[in-house]
């Protein structure tokens, strides 16, 4: 059936014609966007399972196990309250500084966590990527889901702290749910963007801590932007960048002193749409290149 040694050379055009004739599909390349979305949807359960794997493995080997999911945010809150509430007083322009700081801190920790885990996730999942064929976008998506799983107990801590610091129970508190959903979709786009950039240029992984630290200082995590940066162009730029917007949404849901403003919601929807569409297309375009190292 196959000639030995002196096979006629196989011509590309013949091979391609043969593939078309028998309906063979090209592998390893980038599937069309629609197929890609369908493949992702079909494997949505994988995202949750993988995210649970990521969080479980980070708590494994600790005696208190999953309790750290609550202890870690509490310790961070205590540390920042001591520094910015007692040592360097940045409470000016806020009424409930505890609620103000804790909300900002937890939202920041979630977004920056998505960014750094998103950047590392392709390399960390090398074993999986080099053994099984699946849409790679699942990996940064699982990273955000893992961060979200850690955020949920932190949100609980946020509510407990707000209520014990005499915030009244209001209907606006329900707005926390859509705010978190918008932010989650935003971080999917962010993580996919970081994942592709760092996979293509591993050196940039070293830049991530600087970027997240910068984000923290410009987003009013522990101070009021309008009080310290004023209402000039700088104050506006700082207040309307995405992290500040999501922090404001969360604060307006939790704290009476921060008004619920429709413009903030519009900005949030805008950032979410923009970041997700960009990140998704950007990641998908390099689908064939992940995990080649």
């Amino acid at each position, binding site marked *: 059936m196959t000639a030995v*040694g002196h096979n006629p050379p196989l011509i590309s055009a*013949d091979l391609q014609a043969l593939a078309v004739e028998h309906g063979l*599909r090209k*592998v390893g390349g980038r599937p069309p966007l629609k197929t890609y979305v369908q493949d992702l949807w079909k*494997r949505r359960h994988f995202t949750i399972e993988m995210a649970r794997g990521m969080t479980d493995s980070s708590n494994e080997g600790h005696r208190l196990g999953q309790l750290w999911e609550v202890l870690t945010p509490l310790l961070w809150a205590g540390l920042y309250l001591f520094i910015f509430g007692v040592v360097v007083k940045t409470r000016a322009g806020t009424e409930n500084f505890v609620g103000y700081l804790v909300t900002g801190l937890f939202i920041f920790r979630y977004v920056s966590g998505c960014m750094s885990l998103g950047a590392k996730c392709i390399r960390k999942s090398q074993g*999986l990527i080099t053994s099984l064929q*699946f849409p790679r976008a699942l990996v940064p998506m699982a990273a955000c889901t893992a961060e979200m799983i850690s955020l949920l107990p932190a949100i609980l801590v946020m509510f407990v702290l707000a209520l014990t610091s005499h915030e009244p129970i209001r209907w606006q508190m329900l707005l926390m749910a859509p705010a978190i959903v918008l932010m989650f979709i935003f971080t999917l786009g962010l993580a996919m963007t970081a994942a592709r950039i760092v996979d293509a240029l591993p050196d940039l992984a070293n830049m991530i801590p600087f970027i997240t630290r910068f984000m923290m200082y410009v987003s009013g995590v522990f101070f009021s932007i309008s009080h310290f940066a004023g209402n000039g162009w700088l104050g506006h730029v700082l207040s309307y960048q995405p992290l500040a917007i999501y922090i404001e949404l969360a604060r307006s849901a939790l704290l009476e002193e921060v008004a619920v403003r429709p413009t903030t919601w519009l900005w949030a929807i805008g950032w979410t749409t923009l970041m997700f569409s960009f990140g998704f297309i950007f990641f998908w375009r390099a689908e064939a290149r992940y995990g080649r*190292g």
Partner: protein
Amino acid sequence: MADTTISTTLPLAQGAKPTLIADNVHVKYKTYGVRRRPEGAKAPGFAQKLAQIGAVDVVHAVRGVSFVANHGESIGLIGHNGSGKSTLMKTMAGLIAPAEGAIFTDGTASLLGVGGALNKNLSGERNISIGLLALGLTPKQVEDATPGIVEFANIGNFLQLPMNAYSSGMAARLRFAISTAAQPDILLIDEALATGDRSFRERAQRRIEEIKETAGTIFLVSHSMNTIRETCQRGLWLHRGQLRMDGPIDEVVEAYESALG
């Protein structure tokens, strides 16, 4: 382009159905921050290390391989270490993209490698569900398939332990069971049968026969010519990233062995 007379120039038997076509496949690896040293060069000093900052080296692992694999064939890939066998297998599985050329398949190709765990920090149980869900099974299907996998892999009460506590044989068995649970159309086996004891090899052999019947095509990389001869009818001999010979397994093995001297 799709002229019906064209296919007569291809070395195809009448009625054969191609399941995998490799069309002039080239694969390149890039490494960052290091470069290969010319043979005989001394170990680099500080100055040479400084000169490697920003260096990118390209390894051309597969260089223009073309062949047609048909339904029902089992094909052995033979060649020296570094001849591009494993790289070609990964490319066929869609895990790395060719720099030039293309692979076409009918259905899904699944690769079985020597690397045991998908994530060695997680339990075998978690690995099973992550692996199967990644392959596109539903949670219900995963639940149904798990007992069979546990039995096949024979890992008993190690199921809940993280996979870094497994012996390499256990990890390899579990991987084999996970990869074959989704009934791949094309099965690519890279030395996986070399690990494991005799009873596992026999079970694996039976599983391969099953897949061959239901699915189609098997590719096997092994340095054991006996394993290759037992399992395959056709051989591909790769030499420095190029296809040196394609034919019935006995002839290819014979030519390969006589070339070794």
